[in-house]
């Protein structure tokens, strides 16, 4: 079974930013323009210059997927991933190009869309099934499986507005997964559920793939992508940047943030991040650190307009969430202004991290602390490598380290027999 499931040819989606804004603003805007200076307005209109800015969210995308493939779609925010999914799920129509899908498609772009707050779980299963194109009889047949999978049997007759967010995701995923589509499209929805359920969902998706169906999976969780997919496609700026085996593409994704990729990360008000360099104690550029080493993050920015007193927020994120941050909103230190090119850097002292992959994220806020100059963006990544003995770990179950939280600080046990045991990092190793 290696027939093609999806063929995409030259797909593109253009948004007309200016015009659309006008539509939302309503007629008053148009009226205002007409009344103020009718001649000028007409002229502008005829020349089509009326605040119309074209923006290609996706362009020149061609690819094909075989049946039974599980493909991970990765890329930073605004790379075009969601637009692609929206096109494939037919929520919007393409501006150019075409695509072909063999078989039924189910997409889960957001948790619990199609659920109605006031209706019970039972009612919502039927409603949601119908919205996804299932016939009543079909839903009735799979009802028990869906309930079983979502683990909500005790709350079947409770309105979903009283559900916890976890129950919500479980139910939503269960309905979509049991549609038995030939193509399943999943966008970042699993981020909401707990670890156990995430595992269950990934398992279900694996099952779906094994039974010869195709799964498209968008996620920022590279580990999930790596476990689930054999193939990954990296998007950037609305185009495909890499397509291939998941390991190489994910590696590409990580390296793209660092130093010499030559790509800017754009924020608001003409602010851009030109380059991000990670350095160790010795000031050497690296992406590999030892526990107890210092982590220096050096950011080269370019501010086209003078920005007064912005706040920088840096966060180091591990597989289990944020580990630590440097937050100017809290510490109160900030640059007097940003103007033109410049550098700002931050040194985290002796990072107490377990061997894992970590992401560095950056957000920048305006001088009122509220307006966003830049949303949280992944600006770099590094891995920590060390033997577990370095952390003072001598246990028998060291493989469980993957379940541990990323940050370790020294601690001391007082055992019942009066002995004490200290667990701490052995003296910082400068390099391996």
């Amino acid at each position, binding site marked *: 079974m290696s027939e093609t499931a999806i063929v995409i040819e030259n797909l*593109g989606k253009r*948004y007309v930013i200016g015009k*659309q804004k006008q*539509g*939302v603003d*309503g*007629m008053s805007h148009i009226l205002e323009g007409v009344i103020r200076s009718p001649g000028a307005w007409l002229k502008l209109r005829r020349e089509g210059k009326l605040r119309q800015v074209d923006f290609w969210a996706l362009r020149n995308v061609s690819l094909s997927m075989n049946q039974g493939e599980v493909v991970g779609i990765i890329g930073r925010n605004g790379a075009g991933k969601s637009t692609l999914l*929206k*096109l494939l*799920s*037919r*929520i*919007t*129509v*393409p*501006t*150019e*190009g*075409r*695509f*072909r*899908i*063999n*078989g*039924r*498609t189910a*997409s889960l*772009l*957001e948790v619990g*869309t*199609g659920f*109605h707050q*006031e*209706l019970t779980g039972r*009612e919502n299963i*039927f*409603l949601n099934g*119908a*919205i*996804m*194109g299932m*016939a*009543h009889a079909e839903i009735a047949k799979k009802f028990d499986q869906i309930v079983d999978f979502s683990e909500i049997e005790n709350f079947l007759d409770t*309105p979903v507005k009283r559900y916890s967010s976890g129950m919500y995701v479980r139910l939503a995923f269960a309905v979509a997964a049991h549609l038995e589509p*030939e193509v399943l499209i999943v966008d970042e929805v699993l981020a909401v559920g707990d670890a156990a359920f995430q595992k269950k969902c990934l398992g279900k998706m694996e099952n779906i793939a094994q039974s010869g169906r195709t799964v498209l999976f968008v996620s920022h969780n590279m580990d999930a992508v790596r476990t689930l997919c054999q193939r990954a496609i990296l998007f950037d700026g609305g185009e495909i940047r890499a397509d291939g085996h998941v390991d190489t593409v994910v590696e590409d994704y990580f390296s793209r943030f660092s130093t010499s990729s030559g790509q800017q990360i754009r924020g608001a008000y003409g602010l851009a991040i030109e380059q991000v360099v990670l350095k160790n104690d010795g000031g050497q550029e690296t992406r590999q650190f030892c526990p107890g080493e210092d982590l220096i993050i050096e950011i080269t920015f370019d501010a086209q307009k003078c920005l007064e007193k912005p706040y920088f927020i840096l966060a180091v994120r591990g597989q289990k969430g944020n580990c630590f941050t440097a937050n100017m909103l809290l510490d109160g230190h900030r640059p007097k202004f940003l103007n033109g090119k410049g550098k700002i850097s931050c040194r985290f002292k002796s990072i107490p991290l377990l061997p894992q992959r970590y992401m560095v994220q950056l957000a920048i806020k305006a001088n009122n602390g509220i307006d966003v100059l830049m949303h949280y963006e992944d600006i770099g990544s590094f891995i920590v490598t060390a033997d577990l003995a370095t952390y003072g770990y001598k246990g028998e179950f060291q493989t469980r380290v993957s379940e541990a939280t990323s940050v370790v600080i020294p601690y001391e046990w007082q055992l019942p027999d009066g002995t004490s045991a200290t667990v701490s990092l052995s003296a910082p190793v400068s390099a391996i």
Partner: protein
Amino acid sequence: MNQLVIEAGRTERQYWRDLWRYRELFFFLAWRDFLVRYKQTVVGVSWSVIRPLLTMLILTVVFGKLGKMPSGGSPYPLLVLCGMLPWNFFSTAISDSGNSMVANSSLISKIYFPRLIIGVSSVITSFVDFLISALLMVGLMFWYRFVPPVSALLLPLFTLLAFGASVGIGLWIAALMVKYRDFRFIVPFIVQFGLYLSPVGFKSSIVPDRFRLLYSLNPMVGIIDGFRWSLLGAQNSLYLPALIISIIEVAVILISGVLYFRRTERTFADVI
């Protein structure tokens, strides 16, 4: 296995096939709206009888007792109710259906199915309300020991006309509302004025003859007259030009409504 081909600028063919595939959704969405409408209310569905009952009493007092309008022989409450049933159906249908796209914006921006279903199913919801309110009519006829004439058999025809008008105007408003929220303010006006501009509380025969044709441009005039004629009988004689105008108008509005809706629908998710 069914194959889906989407090409820029050519999505029409697929649409009608989808509409058929999703046919059950018409009733699911209507069922949802109906369930939700009376959730957390004490008397529940009774509201669809209580509301028209109270309005009927008020209109009867205002037009029949205070205004001393002619009733043409039949009891005034019956006359009013015959006007109110189609009018209430029409007015709730166009406001609900008009609002339906914006109210379901989360669905529209996240899941695909023919959006036409949302608009039409709101009309179906109002239609169910209409059927329940019709029980009031039956009750009232028993009360007055009024036996409807044979022409009552033609009632479904006028109901269909009211349904068509509701779908047509509802779709127009729904599509326009996505882009121009101004209609959120315009629709309540239409509903409020329409109650007095349409022959709900009075017979259309009180309109002077020379204005009658002009008055009939309101499509609801022909429909309401039709309801009265079929249910109450010959003393509410049918003014044929009004009916013909209504039929033509409904046909035009319905077809143009579907076409306009189809044309704008593809951009709903981008604009909403």
